[in-house]
């Protein structure tokens, strides 16, 4: 399936990006697994996604990205759990907006934190004792963990920024750039 943009994550960040892109006339696909911390409840995310659908955005509700095809520093497509390995979602560019831990944009075990779709480089403390502050109400370091992006919000994988993968929302590490969607429209409009 081909689109002008594929957005992974249907929370506040993903839906906002989808809205701006579709307003610019792009054919957008959003993969939305479900629970989001950024938009609370059930009614509000449903209303937002329904509004997008009315504007022609394709929303894969209750689905999650499970794999990505990457070649020569470019994402060629992603696969989802529900569509299966035989169906590739393809677009000139992709936006990663899967949030942090709650929404499973980031996974963790005792020693590691990782991003499961692309294996993106995640910024986090090497020692688990540095993940938190003892004071509950103090700023918590783990709330700043996320994927590393370059100055154009391109996501780093294996130390190199992928050319057409951008990130926005909670998944982006503190201090790193979030995707400028208006700029993406300028860069990609009319390319395909």
């Amino acid at each position, binding site marked *: 399936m081909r689109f002008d943009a594929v957005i992974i994550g249907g929370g506040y960040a993903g839906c906002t990006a989808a809205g701006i892109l579709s307003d610019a006339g792009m054919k957008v696909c959003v993969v939305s697994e479900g629970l989001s*911390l950024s938009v609370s409840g059930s009614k509000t995310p449903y209303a937002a996604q329904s509004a997008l659908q009315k504007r022609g955005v394709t929303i894969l509700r209750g689905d999650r990205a499970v794999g990505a095809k990457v070649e020569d520093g470019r994402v060629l497509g992603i696969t989802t759990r529900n569509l299966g390995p035989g169906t590739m979602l393809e677009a000139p560019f992709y936006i990663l907006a899967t949030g942090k831990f709650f929404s*499973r944009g980031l996974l963790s075990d005792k020693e590691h934190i990782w991003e499961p779709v692309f294996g993106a480089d995640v910024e986090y403390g090497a020692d688990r004792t540095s993940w938190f502050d003892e004071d*509950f109400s103090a700023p*918590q370091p783990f*709330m*700043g963990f996320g994927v590393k992006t370059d100055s154009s919000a391109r996501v780093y994988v294996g130390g190199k920024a992928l050319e057409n993968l951008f990130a926005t929302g909670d998944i982006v590490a503190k201090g790193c750039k979030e995707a400028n969607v208006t700029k993406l429209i300028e860069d990609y409009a009319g390319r395909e």
Partner: protein
Amino acid sequence: MTSKEYDVIIVGGGITGAATARDCALRGLSTLLIERGDICDGASGRNHGLLHSGARYAVTDREGAEECIRENRILRRIASNCVEPTEGLFISLPEDGLDYQANFIAKCREAGIDAQAIDPAEALRLEPAINPRIIGAVKVPDASVDPFRLVDAHILDAQRHGADIKKFTAVACLVKENGRVVGVKTAAGEVIRSREVVLAAGIWTAGLAREAGVNIGMMPSKGALVIFGHRIANMVINRCRKPANADILVPGDVVSVLGTTSDKVPIESCDDMRATPAEVDLLLREGEQLVPSLAQTRIIRAYAGVRPLVVADPAGDGRNVSRGIVLLDHEERDGVPGLITITGGKLTTSRLMAEMATDLVCKKVGSSAVCRTAELPLPGSEGRKPSFEDPFVERAAIGRHGTEVSRMDFGKGGEILCECEHVTRAEIAYAVEHFGVRNISDLRRHTRIGMGTCQGSFCIRSVAGALAEILAPDPESAARLADEFVSQYRQERWKGITPVLWGDTLREAEYMQKVNGNEI
């Protein structure tokens, strides 16, 4: 104005002090128990909640094992409402071999502990969660005990037999006159006199004794534990080998507790015990040998307590030191009359410790009253539990408070505020009235509020509101108090969450940060 002189003042509101206060009161002594915080604030509230059968000590400490099985039988009888007769399994893995098991069974039987070898396949049918690689299993009469409930029951009974209980009152020092201990001085400067003072303050005993010129070599031994989000096994699961780290998994109400470690720690650290990430990693590594699914089980929190071990030689790691009961007659030992120390021992043997201490108090004050604590049931465990026409709401309260539930006024609100543990508004009112609850942490110790699988995530605001309404003089200060309760509660829980902050726990932590509006 001089306050009354007691026969005995007991310092410390853990299980040892509470059981001693009960015994003294039952023997007709005028008794005061004094505790700096709430009951169960030290090691009594920070352990496995395991009622030992004695099997764990059968090989290494025959005397301790015999004490355990005797007391185990007594507590099942007198504290039936605090004990859940789960039974226990000692499992052998291939690397443990079966030689230890053979010796273990023989030693258990010598100590009077009913230890039955069962087929590994039968053990797996009883407890499917245990490591399927087991080559042997032994069934023993271990059980689960609720330490908070047990201490509460002792305190209630002591009070009903005339004892005075002063909580939230720190003892600044012992008062000595002409070389004799004649009472205690509180932090507020009040002097309370007594014929005998019994120190039952766990690891904090050493400091009080030292001030009075008595040296007790105490070694704080830290034990860290991890709580899992559900009941993984219904029996107590032990490893059948020489006692080591993380080899016991105990079911307690709706959760399971894995422990423990054993490390010598500085005495200064005992006021702020917390489990560390390194201890949690060690517990899990070892615990997964007992029950492999622990690796995938949601962890609620980790905590740590301090065993008050008494040593002649303060070297070693604390596991090879005897955990036996230590009763010190400081008149005999140090030439300081009026002072007695009772320490060491275990939760399981607390009644016996109290009996020994009270026997000595009676000898000193010239009483010939005999001990009846092994026969008389504790409040909540007396006879048949009451039944309700509409049992749903009250069922959990009966489980916690047993026959005492008849003192609860459900007219004060039958709605459930804590969903996990089914705590009602009426139970909160009861806890305030009968246990002098002042804040959420106190309430947790007396009702299990927020101790279930959600750890207060969903209920804490309504619970805080209900408690504040009872405690505050007007609605405005109630609102302020409720906010204070919520942040105190969150901070206290956070202390137990940080050592296990990964996976699902990290997901929940992000959620809690957002819910509380904390921003980076």
